[in-house]
């Protein structure tokens, strides 16, 4: 089942297109790693897909519904870039932040009813964050905050999880734990994951599919195909391919151009 379909998407800031004619389709249960250099349009793609940026040309459809008519926001969980939030002095507790995710799809006036509260407590337990619930969000460490913001994205049990550089502020252990959690959500619960990341060394160990952007789609498809593709080396340089494909030994060695493996 196609959950997200993007056709000919062009987003421009002024005269300069940030994304040009992107076509992309996401099927249920896929785990996409979205990579590319700075300014390649990764965040722009996610934000445009969510309707947070005006689109110059093209169409976005969620679950076969055009974005303009899409209201089933509970099916999407979004974790924005860490640095975008003024968390340090915000007086809300972690529990209040997670609970705010339950407003998705409700009509005005939105209410926090008993099932909503139960869902919040349940998720805090699952993410091992119950002890953080009454602390101010600004008092938490980077890893703890990300766990709380992930809980907010997951509190409606979404079908699709969109994550924008979620591991930027995390140390290696927290990062590994975060990725393990994503993999479990994807494998055990069938949650589709769209992960924007600069963590090209690690993404290959978790994502099954790769979207490589550089203002346009340079590559999209299975990660293995990317690693085996001989022309990738010419496009991105041997270093990028080495990082993504070999560091964790999770992917097969690339096939030498014109030769047998």
């Amino acid at each position, binding site marked *: 089942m196609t959950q997200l379909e993007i056709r000919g998407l062009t987003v421009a800031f002024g005269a300069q297109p940030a994304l040009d004619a992107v076509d992309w389709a996401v099927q249920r249960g896929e785990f996409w790693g979205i990579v590319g250099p700075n300014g390649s349009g990764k965040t722009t793609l996610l934000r445009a897909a969510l309707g947070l940026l005006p689109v110059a040309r093209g169409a976005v459809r969620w679950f076969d519904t055009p974005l303009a008519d899409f209201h089933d926001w509970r099916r999407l969980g979004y974790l924005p870039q860490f640095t975008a939030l003024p968390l340090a002095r915000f007086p809300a*507790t972690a529990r*209040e932040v997670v609970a705010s995710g339950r*407003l998705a799809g409700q009509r005005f006036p*939105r209410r926090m009813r008993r099932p909503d509260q139960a869902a919040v407590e349940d998720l805090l337990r699952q993410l091992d964050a119950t002890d953080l619930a009454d602390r101010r969000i600004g008092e938490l460490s980077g890893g703890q905050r990300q766990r709380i913001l992930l809980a*907010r994205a997951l509190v409606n049990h979404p079908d699709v999880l969109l994550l924008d550089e979620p591991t930027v502020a995390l140390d290696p252990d927290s990062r590994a734990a975060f990725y393990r959690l994503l993999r479990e959500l994807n494998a055990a619960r069938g949650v589709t994951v769209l992960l924007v990341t600069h963590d090209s060394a690690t993404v290959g160990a978790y994502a099954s599919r790769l979207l490589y952007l550089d203002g346009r789609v340079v590559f999209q498809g299975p990660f293995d195909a990317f690693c085996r593709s001989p022309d990738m080396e010419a496009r991105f340089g041997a270093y990028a391919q080495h990082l993504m494909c070999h560091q964790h030994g999770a992917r097969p060695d690339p096939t030498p151009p014109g030769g047998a493996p």
Partner: protein
Amino acid sequence: MTQLAEYLQFGFVQRALAAGVFIALACGALGVFLLLRRMAMIGDGLAHFAFGAVGLALLLGAAPLGLALPLTVAAACLILHLPEKSAFYGDAAIGMVSAVGLALGVLLASLGGGFNVDLFSFLFGDVLAVSRAEVGLAIGLSLTVLGLLLVGRHELFAITFDDAHARTMGLRTGRWNRLLAALAALTVVLGIRVVGTLLVSSLIVFPAATALHLGRGFRATLALAAGLAALSVIAGLVLSLCFNAPAGACITLVNAFFFGITRQVRRR
């Protein structure tokens, strides 16, 4: 103490306390949203604009608050609208609207024969002079502001914490921002009767800033800010009566005192 009890028997003191406390509750609660949305200076800008609107009302012989209210709400919408449509920053829009309002106030006062007592009372506030009708208006509008904040508290929390995420939950954040600006205009116009156009932003900014230091949890912070604002009005009025000092200045200095105390407490 006996003298204070005697003061409390006077109708003008009771009216000042009633109007002042309700307006302060609205200013305090709204201030938390405005500070966290980095819109704190909108209170200052709107207060200066309201001064111009009051000057116009006095020149035309109209009810000052009756005319200032819709004009200041319109100015609030303009402050939000300008950065959306033009290439300049939001605080520049506040500065422009503020300066135009203040210039109009001075010009209209000059046309009307110079600064008179009425305009002076709006500049520095005169809560001890509020009429029975103004008390009714202040309580009614303050309850409206508090009611809207209460009903929309979940939505306002979501857009205040994370505007982009709120939009991905189907919230129309532009509408909520306009509502917040309109409520700010309403609260400012009410507040200038208590502390005056020059000091009204202090009733919005100080209690919220103090509560943000102390509050644990968003609801608790809102309640604390509203409570501190009300307490500052009561304490300020008492000081004003005891020392025969201007009420608006006393209220502002009490707020500054609360803020300073909490800063010291937090450091320890």
